[in-house]
């Protein structure tokens, strides 16, 4: 009898004690949960891709509610989600530009040489552990598709069996491939930018040439060609400054190896609306390509063959008589 009583008492007593301690602790150490976090969680896409830098959508929602993350941090949701999150948090959302992943290499099997034949695990991470991978160029794309495997949106593929290519329409800019690529070859670039240096090799020009037909050899012709100071040279390698580039694509035309890629199909051309032009010559003065002809006081005209679509004249024209159109081919 006494034994039963004792065990009852001690077990019950301890349960009670621990319960009391926990109850006290939960009061004492209470952390307020933000109701906004739950509301935000509701409007997120729920892809749990982690592209925002937080562990899943829950983590991101909490971070936004506590002000640690920006309301437009969800790349998958894009601006529609950002607007809804913004309205929960009571802030105005500026439309953020879409970014698209680019694989900064064009060294496929036709353009680049291999230094050995790789027969191991079909994965870039594994291959890159073997002397940096089979590519002659130690910076190049290995084409074994580690990025393809991680892309949740089926937006990246190995073309020609040797190099990764991004599908611009499907890419959400989540950046998973950027993290996965062992060669750090993938970069998120603003959608509006149509010119990219598709090479990250820091090797000297001669070596680049031996390894790859389309690598940047550091000749600096693009630097000289660019009228807008939009090209930087770091470590013998050209880089586009996306904030300054106006998509005139002159550098891509000048590049002797084709390492600079431009979406020529989207190249613009200026057009002067004659009925609006007052002949002030402002456009003619600002054009860096001598692509505008016309005398003062007379209607001006754009020479489409010379115009690069840089858009400087559009900005300068005092009566808005110039517009940029996509070129017809």
């Amino acid at each position, binding site marked *: 009898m006494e034994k039963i009583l*004792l065990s009852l008492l001690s077990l019950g007593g301890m349960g009670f004690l*621990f319960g009391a301690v926990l109850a006290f602790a939960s009061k004492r150490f209470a952390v307020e949960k933000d109701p906004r976090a739950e509301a935000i969680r509701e409007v997120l896409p729920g892809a749990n891709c982690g592209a925002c830098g937080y562990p899943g959508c829950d983590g991101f929602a909490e971070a936004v509610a506590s002000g640690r993350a920006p309301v437009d941090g969800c790349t998958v949701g894009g601006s529609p989600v950002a607007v809804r999150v913004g309205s929960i948090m009571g802030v105005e959302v500026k439309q953020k530009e879409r970014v698209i992943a680019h694989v900064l290499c064009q060294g496929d099997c036709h353009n680049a040489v291999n230094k050995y034949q790789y027969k191991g695990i079909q994965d870039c991470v594994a291959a890159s552990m073997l002397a940096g991978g089979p590519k002659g160029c130690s910076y190049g794309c290995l084409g074994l598709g580690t990025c393809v495997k991680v892309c949740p949106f089926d937006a990246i593929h190995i073309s020609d069996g040797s190099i990764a290519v991004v599908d611009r329409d499907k890419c959400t800019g989540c950046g998973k491939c950027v993290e996965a690529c062992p060669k750090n070859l993938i970069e998120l670039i603003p959608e509006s930018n149509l010119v990219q240096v598709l090479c990250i090799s820091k090797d000297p020009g001669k070596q680049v040439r031996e390894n790859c037909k389309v690598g940047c050899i550091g000749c600096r012709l693009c630097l000289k060609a660019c009228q807008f100071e939009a090209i930087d040279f770091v470590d013998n390698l050209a880089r586009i400054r996306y904030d300054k580039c106006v998509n005139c694509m002159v550098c891509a035309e000048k590049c002797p190896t084709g390492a600079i890629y431009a979406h020529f199909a989207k190249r613009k051309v200026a057009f002067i609306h004659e009925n609006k032009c007052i002949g002030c010559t402002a456009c003619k003065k600002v054009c860096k390509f001598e692509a505008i002809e016309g005398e003062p006081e007379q209607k001006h005209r754009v020479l489409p063959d010379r115009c690069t679509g840089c858009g400087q004249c559009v900005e300068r024209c005092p009566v808005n008589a110039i517009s940029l159109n996509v070129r017809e081919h």
Partner: protein
Amino acid sequence: MEYVGRIFVILISSILINNFVMSRFLGICPFLGVSKRVETAIGMGAAVTFVMAMTSLITYIVQYAILEPLGLKYLQTIIFILVIASLVQFVEMVVQKASPTLYQALGVYLPLITTNCAVLGVAIINIDEKYDLIQALFNGVGAALGFTLAIVLFAGIRERLELSDIPKPLKGFPIALITAGLMSVAFLGFQGLIK
């Protein structure tokens, strides 16, 4: 000196020879569940280490201050479970308040430990082996380090397995179980380390 030597033996034995996962087969569920990435494995290991050390201390006190004097040794298991469950809860609350960063880092692993049989195991072994308080503490920490070692190694292997070309029927869990078995055999090789 003798005492320090004994503690050293306890540590080595709980880390390598009587490794909780590899030769005592305790704590298998987190071992298999949380070992896909080395990073998370380390997080889990850290959380377990902390809880095991605390548990070793408190269960020791409960055993010799309450259970033994009252002759209630048969209540050991249930009371230890009670202790561990409340302890984990308590620790979780305190950590959440005191250090949100640590709380973030430990994440879901903290509550998971409540159901980790390795923690209960270490508490009971401490009593069975008749360790004193300090030895119990070292045994707890050693066991946790052994657990961490095993789970981190295993996670490293699994990260590599992900990349390998594995026959379809074996892909995923089967190959993980086989690997765990082989690792265990390897760990059993430590058996002769201390006579």
